[in-house]
């Protein structure tokens, strides 16, 4: 009794943690964070496209969030980035006003009028003096596609410039090109349900557990006791969790996939029905004759027996086999052919268009898929072709603009834009929601090129990114959570995001910034119907009519929310369309003849193979699930920061570490022909001897990478270059 009097079971500190029913289907929540309302929004990080339930206070301001149960993508789950999605909005380094570089070289605050005047004067003068090819935008896969489309249309149709590309070039250009060439349209065929329906799941160059944890969740829900095979030079978290790890030599993937096709065709394990829907099989079969496992063993590092056994597994007619790839394939000097080698395997074994099958790209950024359809860079907005006169006519009519405004050629690719800038042909860049001064391959080259630019505009949430710091003009943008619009995820599902926080200072959504620029440039009239993101959405919807990505029956944002997102295509009003749909069930592809193509080329040499001076091969990739790309956002969350090492570290094989005389936690200098980086040693047999791995999130890493590109997709080859290591004495 006396003891009880002595115990304080309640009080102010205890009350801090008291929970109360949160309603809105949430279960208990902290009492002081009980929502007055809730809404849903698609996460703004990766292309998984998880839906989050945002907890709002009585002013409509977000106070917390949790993953949305019942959404067909994430089923009530999210990775740490999603859970902490509100954190980066409150960062102290948000850009709150436009910033203009003054005569002394300092970035100083200015108002929107000054910023817009400077912007239009500079670009008008560059266009007048150097022509419409003398400036370019570099945009992003991180903003709603209404904004991407506005930017692309404003730049090309309104302002009359030609070149613009996006960081999606660093992310999934390879998949785009592979699909376009093979299927006749950029159409990732899968639905996430295929993860649960598959018997054999092959993950190529994909660290799903870390890069897309929610998709790994879908694999874990597979009740068919699947074989899960990871093909990766590194023993990633996913390789550890898989049933089999095929640890091939870096860039041995293309040869290995050809050897599989060789074995499958040699043993006659092909699917004639599927081949009937294709063109070019004979040539392909001829080609892979020269790719026996014996011949390729030296290049793949995989034994003949293992290759043959695996070939039998993925051609077992009783099994549903699905192929999935991510950046290990996309970011390669021969990524397009590697992706197509998987498409070829799916075609010859009939593993396409059926549940649990497909050759499926898992995209990186939240709206890379939106960019593919609507960014108006490589393809004409709405899934059209700049070179096609009918397409230009159609787009002009729907947008209500003169056909002559639409150029008949696509833009230069990202690397070509930068080369043109280095050569002095491009005088100005407008960078929107991306951070190339951290993320672009061979960083020093970009820094040198900065000196050649007459004008560099960076439009971003933060004034502190590597790119904003070197800009002449910074335009302060609202971030995810401060604006609305739509994203498209890896399974072609369109979902909405909402404004649930006010933007700091006089920052504006990218959409509103584009409206201001249209007005200031003098082409406001052309965009008079683009008043809100949803108004723009309806215009874009109409553009897709009769294209493979036809979504003309989506009514608007409410419809998308009510349906739990909608996958394209959605061409006719049909309430019975299942929530999860895959493409090509009818065996018809998008080439005019309805047939898929076999595309292949012999594997090529590594662009920069290790040699005596630089004896190690550097692999790069995702570090942890709590880090995103250049960390401009994830570095602003205390919790996410806790979950990843603060300083760069390099994974190195323990034997190599021993040979170099370094032990765990020592520092080493990693040097390539282009630069050097200091990193802490993490000695782990996750990499093979002669290989080292650096996570891409640290700004130093791209000092090392080698500027080489896939010839078809122009995607940079981030994941293989030669480096040397030595102990750091400091």
């Amino acid at each position, binding site marked *: 009794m006396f003891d009880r009097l002595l115990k304080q079971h309640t009080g102010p500190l205890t009350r801090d943690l008291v929970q109360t029913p949160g309603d809105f*289907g949430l279960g208990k929540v902290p009492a002081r964070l009980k929502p007055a309302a809730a809404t849903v929004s698609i996460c703004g990080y990766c292309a998984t496209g998880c839906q989050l339930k945002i907890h709002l206070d009585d002013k*409509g301001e977000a106070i917390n969030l*949790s993953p949305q149960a019942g959404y067909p993508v994430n089923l009530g789950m999210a990775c740490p980035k999603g859970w902490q999605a509100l954190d980066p909005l409150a960062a102290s380094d948000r850009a709150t006003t436009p910033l203009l570089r003054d005569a002394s070289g300092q970035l100083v605050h200015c108002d929107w009028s000054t910023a817009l005047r400077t912007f239009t004067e500079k670009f008008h003068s560059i266009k007048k003096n150097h022509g419409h090819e003398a400036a370019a935008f570099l945009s992003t896969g991180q903003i709603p596609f209404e904004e991407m489309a506005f930017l692309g249309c404003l730049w090309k149709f309104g302002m009359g410039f030609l070149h613009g590309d996006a960081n999606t070039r660093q992310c999934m250009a390879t998949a785009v090109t592979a699909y376009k060439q093979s299927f006749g349209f950029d159409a990732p065929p899968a639905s996430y349900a295929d993860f649960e329906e598959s018997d054999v799941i092959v993950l190529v160059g994909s660290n799903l557990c870390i890069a897309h944890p929610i998709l790994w969740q879908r694999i874990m829900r597979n009740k068919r006791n699947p074989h899960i095979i990871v093909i990766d030079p590194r023993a990633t978290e996913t390789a550890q969790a898989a049933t089999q790890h095929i640890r091939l030599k870096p860039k041995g993937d293309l040869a290995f996939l050809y050897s599989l096709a060789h074995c499958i065709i040699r043993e006659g394990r092909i699917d004639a029905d599927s081949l009937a829907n294709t063109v070019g099989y004979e040539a392909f079969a001829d080609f892979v004759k020269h790719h026996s496992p014996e011949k390729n063993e030296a290049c793949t590092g995989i034994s003949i027996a293992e290759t043959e056994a695996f070939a039998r597994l993925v051609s077992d007619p009783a099994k549903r086999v699905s192929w999935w790839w991510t950046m290990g394939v996309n970011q390669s000097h021969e990524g397009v052919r590697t992706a197509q080698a998987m498409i070829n395997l799916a075609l010859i074994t009939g593993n396409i268009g059926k549940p649990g099958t497909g050759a499926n790209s898992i995209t990186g950024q939240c709206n890379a898929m939106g960019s593919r359809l609507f960014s108006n860079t490589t393809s004409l907005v709405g899934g059209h072709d700049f070179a096609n006169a009918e397409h230009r006519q159609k787009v002009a009519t729907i947008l209500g603009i003169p056909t002559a405004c639409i150029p008949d050629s696509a833009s230069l690719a990202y690397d070509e834009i930068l080369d043109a800038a280095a050569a002095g042909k491009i005088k100005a860049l407008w960078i929107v929601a991306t951070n190339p001064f951290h993320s672009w391959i061979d960083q020093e080259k970009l820094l040198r090129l900065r000196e050649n630019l007459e004008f560099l505009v960076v439009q971003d949430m933060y004034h502190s990114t590597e790119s904003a710091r070197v800009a002449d003009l910074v335009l302060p943008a609202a971030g995810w959570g401060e604006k609305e619009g739509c994203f498209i995820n890896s399974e072609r599902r369109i979902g909405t995001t909402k404004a649930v926080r006010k933007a700091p200072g006089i920052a504006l959504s990218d959409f509103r910034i584009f409206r201001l620029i249209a007005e200031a440039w003098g082409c406001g009239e052309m965009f008079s119907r683009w008043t809100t993101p949803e108004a723009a959405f309806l215009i874009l919807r109409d553009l897709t009519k009769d294209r493979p990505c036809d979504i003309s029956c989506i009514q608007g944002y409410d419809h998308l929310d009510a349906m739990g997102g909608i996958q394209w295509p959605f061409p006719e009003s049909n309430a019975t369309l299942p929530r999860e749909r895959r493409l090509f069930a009818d065996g018809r592809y998008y080439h005019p003849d309805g047939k898929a193509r076999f595309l292949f080329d012999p594997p090529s040499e590594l662009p920069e193979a290790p040699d005596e001076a630089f004896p190690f091969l550097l692999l790069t990739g995702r570090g942890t699930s709590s880090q995103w790309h250049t960390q401009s956002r994830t570095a602003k969350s205390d919790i996410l920061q806790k979950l990843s090492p603060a300083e760069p570290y390099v994974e190195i094989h323990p034997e190599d570490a021993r040979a170099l005389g370094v032990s765990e936690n020592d520092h080493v200098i990693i040097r390539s022909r282009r630069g050097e980086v200091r990193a802490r040693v993490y000695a782990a047999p996750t990499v093979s001897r002669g290989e080292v791995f650096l996570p891409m999130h640290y700004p130093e890493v791209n000092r090392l990478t080698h500027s080489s590109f896939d010839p078809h997709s122009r995607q940079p080859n981030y994941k293989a270059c030669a480096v040397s290591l030595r102990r750091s004495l400091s």
Partner: protein
Amino acid sequence: MQTLIDELLSQQATLQTPAARFAEIHERSPDLDDHYKQLIPLSKPGPGEQYAFEVALDRCTGCKACVSACHSLNGLDEHESWRDVGLLLGGGQAPDWQQTVTTACHHCEDPGCLNGCPVGAYEKEADTGIVRHLDDQCIGCSYCILKCPYDVPKYSKKRGIVRKCDMCHQRLSAGEAPACVQACPTEAIRIVNVRSQGSGDRNHTLNFFNQKSTIQNHQSSIPSSHITLPTTRYTGRDVPHTHFAADRSALIPQHAHWPLVLMLTLTQAGIGLCGGDFQAPSPFFPHTIIGAILFYLGMAASVFHLGHPLKAWRFFLGLKTSWLSREILAFSLFAPIPLLLCVLPHLPEFPLKHHFILLTAHSTLPIGLLAIFTSVMIYHDTHRALWKLPRTALRFFGTTACFASLGIPMLLIPLLLLKLTPELLFLRHASATEWSPDQHSARLQLGPLRPILIARIACALLVLPAALFHPLAALPILLAAEILERQLFFQSVQSPKMPGGFAN
């Protein structure tokens, strides 16, 4: 133009209010109910049972959603989460093997935190076995942090208390799953009812990760389960016997706990000076007065270690199990002595005054040494290698002995060397090939803490000539030497914990 700018800025500053179209207003049962119903027990624990976390290692891939969910659904501070994810490596037996490990409080059968708390701010719920922390009872002494072999309770500077995982007891009691259980995309964490092992069975406690084995792997850096009988179960994947934590060899110095460094050295110096057998009080070396001042300064310093010192009067609640309670009691008993030693001789005559003086003088050492013994036991009871009884006793009593012999150089010099020798010999552990807590501590001392180590040795050696010159010259140097020694004691200890990730 300005009109449009103003219009768009005003639009940007307008949020849809809850009444607007996307608001969703219903009271309904939790949407994830169906998902987690199978992840929590159908019934409350029966007699001899308690709730425990069960982690399926083969389902955990280190996405760390559990950490974020714990933070968000419990409304914790910016950097605060009660769950953490680390990494185990296979070691010699399976060099390629890796496993991520998610950890929260183990809700131990015999919780170190609870046993160590001086004010009873921990309770183990009788029906569920959940180890609860009473935030408003806590005085912020942080002893539970030292007592927990798994580094679970975390100090909140802002609040002046520690907080820790309560297994979301509010959710469990409403039939909802804890935040981490709800949030794990691969259902790797669940709550189960487990049978208590009972402390009698302690010698047969199973190895944490090898449920089939009782062999502890001392190189793993993962603490033995014998200490507190943790209840978490790790299942689903065999763990090689040679496993170890990925962050095992990260040389990160521990918190210095400055108030404790000062409290320990100053009280030990004070007790030594007051109780030292000096021939006669000398006007040139008023050791009693100096001792009293140092002692009281030490006592004052200890207060700064508490987040809520005003609540510390409840210290007697922990006397049964907590050496910290006992220390507070012992020091309270000793507290009047230095004052009496200084004041009594100068008071006017009163009956039995001489006896009082004698009694005070003769109780100084016994009570003082008893108090120091309780200090020693506080650290010994944490089961940390560097703080084992003989090592801590040598340091603490050694300090007292040095100050007690400050006026007698022929005694001080050998005593000081005697104290220094094991400290120097300890450094040889740094070159051991196999990891051990001692190797780790020695490497910390020779690595990031090297400047402190050098200063410690230099000061100790300087004391020798100074002592030959005059006790008052030696005193500040000895004090500095001992403070540095104590800083090393705190900062270089290998603090047991669950595996962390590499460099984070």
